């Protein structure tokens, strides 16, 4: 019996800015997790990660992070990924500053 696959997003750090990016279904890197591709199939997830690993001039350290489908697009599951998607809690910097 295979265990149920938890959907994933591909995420990494941008090489130049160092900030958090997510991979979209049309092969772009976005700074808004809601625009990311939610990958619900394990084999496809591996392919998408391989694609990301093939872009070392754009991103650093790509990996698969657990995510869930939300009303506006993928949402992080683990609190670490939630912080990455939002920014630090002591100042309105990071992604939360961009979104306003």
């Amino acid at each position, binding site marked *: 019996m295979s265990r149920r696959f938890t959907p994933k997003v591909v995420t990494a750090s941008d090489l130049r*800015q*160092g900030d958090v990016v997510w991979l979209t279904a049309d092969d772009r890197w976005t700074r808004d997790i809601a625009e990311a591709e939610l990958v619900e199939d394990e084999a496809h997830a591996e392919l998408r990660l391989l694609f990301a690993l093939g872009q070392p001039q754009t991103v*650093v350290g790509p990996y698969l992070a657990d995510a869930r489908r939300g009303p506006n697009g993928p949402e992080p599951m683990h609190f670490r990924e939630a912080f990455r998607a939002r920014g630090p*809690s002591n*100042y309105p910097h990071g992604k939360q500053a961009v979104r306003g």
Partner: protein
Amino acid sequence: MYRYSDFDEAFVRARVAQFRDQVARRLSGALTEDEFKPLRLMNGLYLQLHAYMLRVAIPYGTLSARQMRQLALIAERWDKGYGHFTTRQNVQFNWPRLQDVPDILDALADVGMHAIQTSGNCIRNVTADHFAGAAADEIADPRPVAELIRQWSTDHPEFSFLPRKFKIAVTGSPNDRAVTRAHDIGLRMLRDGSGAAGFEVSVGGGLGRTPMLGQVIRPFLPEADLLPYLEAVLQTYNAAGRRDNKYKARIKITVFEHGLAAFRDEVETRFAEIRPEFRGADRALLAEIRAAFAPPAFARLPVGGFEAARARDGAFRAWCATNLAPHREGDHAIVTISLKAHGATPGDATAAQMRVMADLAERYAYDELRVSHEQNIVLPHVPKAHLPAVFDALAAAGLGTANIGLISDIIACPGMDYCALATARSIPVAQAIAQRFAALDLEHAIGPMKIKISGCINACGHHHVGHIGILGLEKAGVESYQITLGGDATELAAIGERAGPGFAHDEIVPAIERLVRAYLALRAGPDETFLAAFRRLGPAPFRAALYPEEARRDAA
């Protein structure tokens, strides 16, 4: 203050040029990340949770006004307008862009600063007592020795690929403010029976996943033997330290696994071999460095105005009571500037605040500032006559908080708000504790209290040596905070004991409040500190306060 020689200047500039080229090659694709990572780390550049982070060395925590102003300029031009002072007496910028880092390093080199060896498995920035050269209780200024070790260890070819990072701390005072026993090597300056200068050398201290206090390997090392002896310790560690397991690679594990006696025998054998190779160049250099650390020409100003202001002004009096320490000159004081305003991020200073501190140092304090490992800024030499003006200027800049050594003077690592290694946040916990006890108006009644918070097991926040330590972990997908009790960072160093199960993020502040209220109820009197009460009573009554349900169950 020590000024860079032409050699230092050329060395640092060459490093910046190298790194500029390395960044260009990374951006062009000529270097992979695997190739680039060790190069950027050697220049203090990390990739963290939200951005790159540049860690700038502040050797033995000493800064001039000009250097502090340059940090302000960097914060404004290339970062988000602030810097974060750390428990390693360094400063970190949390938001630089990769392509800007060579320019930042050039700007640092303009004022004799750099980020070399602030990361990697090498000898890191040497730390020292932040009151060095000023404290009334000091035997000798430890900074010349720290500077000698910096010069010896910078790019030392034999020690650039140690099994793991290596930290050395020096104190010149019997009251240890440099946490020497939590370092790979701790040096305490001493004089022997005949008055000759030397060091008590401890080895194998460290916090992190396996906290250990350093053990004395040489009770008295003559000053002339310092570098060859350090070299012998490093050689022994370099050869015997484990490279198979990162978590067992620090010297504390090497000493623990081999036993102090066997480790010491090996060190002494090597020392005997290499000692003759040191023919006095190191001694001559130390003498030169010492001259550069000559104390300022202390001004003799009347203290009557200071006394009158203290009698007249309650806010100034409160600040004097907590933020001043005795200076070796009776008409001077050591000022600790709190970077812990209630609700602020411990260790953060805005560019504007950095400029205020630089101006005050220049105008009133012989152009000298220090970074303390407790994440505050120190003006080491201030004539008492100037203290009212210094306080007024600090208060106007949001830097006048009178809380040094109190419950809101919390050490906190960046935690999961910034750090890629963290397992939980630290900063919001520190902010909430400080605000809670400010709202209760209890912190002066509580008295001396060291709370130290780490956001992971690596213990950058020194939680093991906090009177109350807080360690942030992940448990079942949420942040969980473990409390340790009874730690001590001084010459009486002790590792705190774990109190029991962890607390959720929204439970940790109420837990700390119960703990502190229990202390207030149990103490023999206002003069018995939390740590003294804990030592007298043991952990049981404090555990009962932390886990009331368990206590009720046990009583039933």
